[in-house]
């Protein structure tokens, strides 16, 4: 069995840790610049604590990069240099040029790099894409997705990282990137983007964007990404139309399991993602399977790069108030 080390022990690492614990691997251990965070995670999901990145790299076959985005490049390059198989949380890196450095280096040394664009592994999103690919919708025409949350919590330190939009890229690079990648997976390459948002509105702990995508096929995409919703009142929405039909899903729809009890207060949705339906389990299981068979990952390094590139174009559009044509965009 392969040995897994997780770098960065924040929120997403907990979700990965839970899935690794269920998969046929040795969860070897955790490294975080905050040792207490690594210790808490190890206690919860298993594995030990590494005191340095080098220590972790020396003891693992798989490196799962769950740090904040500005450390992705450094960690991925170090892991690739030692021939590790790599899972990198999205976004692949903070800038297009960092992404290019990562992609070309991994290619050069032959390191297998999987970008964890998890929306491709949500069962309802997979099923909707299947409706496109199978031809049931005819020629794809429009795609609309919503991903709306409150501002990321997780303690003052973490909130501060996200609040520094230069550092985090704000809601576009952290949230809309899911939809950019998913829409590109369904509809192909993006011709141009236009967007408006709160990037430079200077409202504390708030970000939001409404994004238009034009695909090279002529199809049209829309994304709403929000860190302006109230905590706990998140929403996800999906609609794809084509010349023959339409497919829709909304997190506000009646769920397959809902509870309303004196302890839940209101109605509480309990979407049961069982076993391999659990998106984070599914993406890591897929990663392991591809390692074993040598098959290409569902998300290629180039996909991770293009998602960042399109998000950078979106940010550029928000700043300039102008549309951005991807073929002319330097990043």
């Amino acid at each position, binding site marked *: 069995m392969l040995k897994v080390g997780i770098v960065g022990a924040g929120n997403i690492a907990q979700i990965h840790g839970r899935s690794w614990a269920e998969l046929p691997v040795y969860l070897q251990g955790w490294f975080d610049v905050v040792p207490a965070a690594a210790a808490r995670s190890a206690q919860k999901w298993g594995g030990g604590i590494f005191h340095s990145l080098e220590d972790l790299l020396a003891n693992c076959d798989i490196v799962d990069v769950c740090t904040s985005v500005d450390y992705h490049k450094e960690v991925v390059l170090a892991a690739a240099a030692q021939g590790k198989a790599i899972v990198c949380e999205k976004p692949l890196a903070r800038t297009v040029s960092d992404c290019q450095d990562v992609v070309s280096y991994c290619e050069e040394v032959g390191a297998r790099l999987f970008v964890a664009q998890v929306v491709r592994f949500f069962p309802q999103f997979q099923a909707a894409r299947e409706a496109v690919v199978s031809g049931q919708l005819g*020629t794809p*025409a*429009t795609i*609309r997705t*919503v991903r*709306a949350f409150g501002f990321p919590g997780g303690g003052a330190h973490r909130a501060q990282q996200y609040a520094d939009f230069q550092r985090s890229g704000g809601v576009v690079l952290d949230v809309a990137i899911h939809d950019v990648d998913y829409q590109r997976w369904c509809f192909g390459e993006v011709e141009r983007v*236009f*967007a*408006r*948002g*709160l990037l430079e*509105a200077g*409202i504390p702990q*708030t970000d*939001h964007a*409404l994004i*238009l995508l*034009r695909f090279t096929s*002529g*199809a*049209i995409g*829309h994304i*709403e990404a*929000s860190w*302006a*919703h*109230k905590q706990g*009142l998140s929403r996800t929405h999906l609609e794809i*139309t*084509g*010349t*023959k*039909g*339409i497919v829709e899903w909304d997190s*506000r729809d009646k769920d397959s399991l809902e509870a309303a009890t004196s302890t839940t207060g209101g109605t509480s949705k309990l979407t049961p993602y069982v076993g391999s339906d659990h998106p984070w389990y599914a993406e890591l299981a897929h990663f392991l399977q591809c390692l074993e068979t040598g098959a290409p990952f569902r998300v290629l390094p180039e996909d991770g790069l293009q998602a960042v590139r399109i998000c950078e174009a979106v940010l550029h559009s928000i700043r300039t*108030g*102008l*549309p951005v044509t991807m073929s002319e965009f330097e990043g």
Partner: protein
Amino acid sequence: MPIRIGLCSMAHGHAFSYLKCLQTLPEVEVVGAWDEVPSVLERISNQFGVPTYSDLNALLIGDLDGVIICSPNSHHRQHVEMSAIQVPNILCEKPIATSEVDGLAMLEVCRDTDTRLQIAFPVRFAPAITEAKRILDQGELGTVYSASCTNQGSMPGGWFVNSELSGGGAVIDHTVHVIDLLRWFWGTEVTEVYAEIGHSLLHPGLGIDDAGLLSFQLANGVYGTLDTSWSRPPAYRIWGNVSMDLVGSEGVLAVNAFGQALTLTSEDTGRTHLQPWGISPDMGLIRDFVDMIRLGREPSITGYDGLQATRVALAAYKSAKTGVPISLPLDPLTKED
């Protein structure tokens, strides 16, 4: 004395709905209906028992209190000009016109003849919309940041897809309702619009725009988007929608204007569809128009409102053609080239 109302053209499907609404009001007498198509007049006569006219002027000179114009969009100007010299109150279907020049001319003739011109934006009377405005007026959302809106529908066919008559497809058809609501919510104007428009994207060979996505900025600081696409297939559960998702500093508001509906499945139609319940927006509009005549008050939705909404649709086409955002001058009577 009844309020005497005439119908100028049944070309827009709403005309039949308006007629049904009128016939429920005891104070209204539907004096007659004019249309270019004899079979339509026959249907009006047989089904609704309304006198019909093959000569529009013969209807207009009949001492009407009001006329409702539901002709194809590009005929609105001519019909408003003919009506304004005979009839003191006009309800004109949206969009007001297919060009800014025509819209301005219509406002002018109504001003010169002291005619009250109301534009048919029935969605203002949908209960969810009326209540949403109240919530916004009370400031319950705090500072509103954005409005993600849709007015998606099924492809109407007929003259709607003949640009000579309609002035355009999905974008002109479905931009004006939501823009009117946003202007009304906040007493504001659209200052800039960018648009991605698709021609024959959902309906191969249609030959007119059938997909539209607008991104706009309002003068009050709110930005938003509007999907105008004819993206609902014939088998869909409802003709379309008007939805607005507003995000503010104190919360979000999700408006589904036609959400008051039962789910109805019948072997007659072989499908499941949404059956509206409650007061229809069309009824609210007609009630408002009749009240305007009865009380002698000014229109709640003016020709100017109609023109301002239409200018946004025209700017959207211009944006798609030029590839850049289009600024709209705040002074309404400044003509663009």
